[in-house]
């Protein structure tokens, strides 16, 4: 069931990524201030936005799990957070590369945007050991959902606090005080944002399909009274 529509979604993701990357490198003009280095912006910022939205979605799915007690929502929440953490790794590394090129330093500790993203990332990094520490699957799912809701609520609060803070060096993406981004840059950025959003959705669907297939195999083994293989993870929720 989870694999339904995966093929057209994958094709759309690859096509959109190709279009977006073409726009970034062949259509969007060079930034007058930063020059070619600014091209990192088109991968770094969409990854950050999609990762943060993914964390919030993880919280929304967790609410659905707590309300309905349906394990399907726990799996959605887990997978959303899992893919967003991977995107978060990419955000931190691409951001560090951009910082080194622009500021001459890989990391700046008193810059609120950088540190706040690191805090959010580290918060979600604790999600795995937290899940792993609980043996009972029902309790594990319930506690993980509470964690996802709390952390998910923290993400927009953290984002707003950072927007309100005085930033000295980190640029504001949609600042309009100086006219904002030129149209060509905005088009390339929006296409990249859609492409990264599609990539996130595709990866979530892939992960859910794999978990579903693994769950079905276990069900078959149980139906046949065959020993259940020990290869599956204790952390990841089962989907049937």
């Amino acid at each position: 069931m989870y694999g339904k529509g995966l093929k057209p979604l994958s094709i759309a993701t690859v096509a959109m990524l190709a279009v977006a990357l073409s726009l970034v490198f062949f259509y969007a003009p060079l930034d007058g201030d930063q020059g070619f280095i600014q091209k990192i912006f088109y991968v770094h910022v969409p990854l950050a936005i999609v990762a943060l939205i993914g964390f919030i979605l993880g919280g929304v799915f967790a609410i659905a799990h707590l309300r309905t007690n349906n394990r399907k929502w726990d799996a959605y929440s887990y997978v959303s957070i899992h893919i967003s953490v991977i995107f978060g790794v990419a955000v931190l590394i691409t951001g560090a590369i951009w910082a080194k090129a622009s500021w001459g330093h890989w990391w700046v500790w008193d810059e609120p945007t950088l540190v706040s993203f690191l805090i959010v990332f580290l918060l979600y990094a604790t999600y795995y050991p937290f899940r792993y520490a609980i043996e009972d699957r029902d309790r594990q799912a319930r506690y993980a959902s509470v964690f996802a809701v709390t952390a998910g609520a923290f993400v927009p609060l953290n984002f707003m606090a950072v927007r309100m803070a005085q930033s000295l060096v980190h640029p504001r993406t949609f600042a309009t005080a100086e006219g904002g981004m030129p149209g060509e840059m905005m088009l390339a950025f929006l296409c990249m944002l859609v492409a990264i959003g599609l990539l996130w959705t595709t990866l979530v669907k892939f992960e859910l399909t794999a978990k579903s297939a693994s769950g079905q195999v276990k069900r078959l083994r149980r139906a046949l009274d065959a020993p259940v293989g020990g290869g599956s993870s204790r952390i990841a929720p089962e989907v049937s």
Partner: protein
Amino acid sequence: MVELAALPLAAPALPLDEAGKYVAGAYVVFMVLLVVYVGIMAAKLGRIERELREVAAIAEDRKAEKREEVSA
């Protein structure tokens, strides 16, 4: 620790040959993470396929045993 005051607020743009390696680095990191993830997913899929083959073999053995019982 790096102080904010020490950072160049209006640094001149890097020349293309120097900026290129940073931009390439950022996009390569993105692609490598994606490839690593796809590789992990491929390994998972391989494990599921192996398990499915084992289950199919068990089901076929059971069916053969039943057929032998009926014929006996």
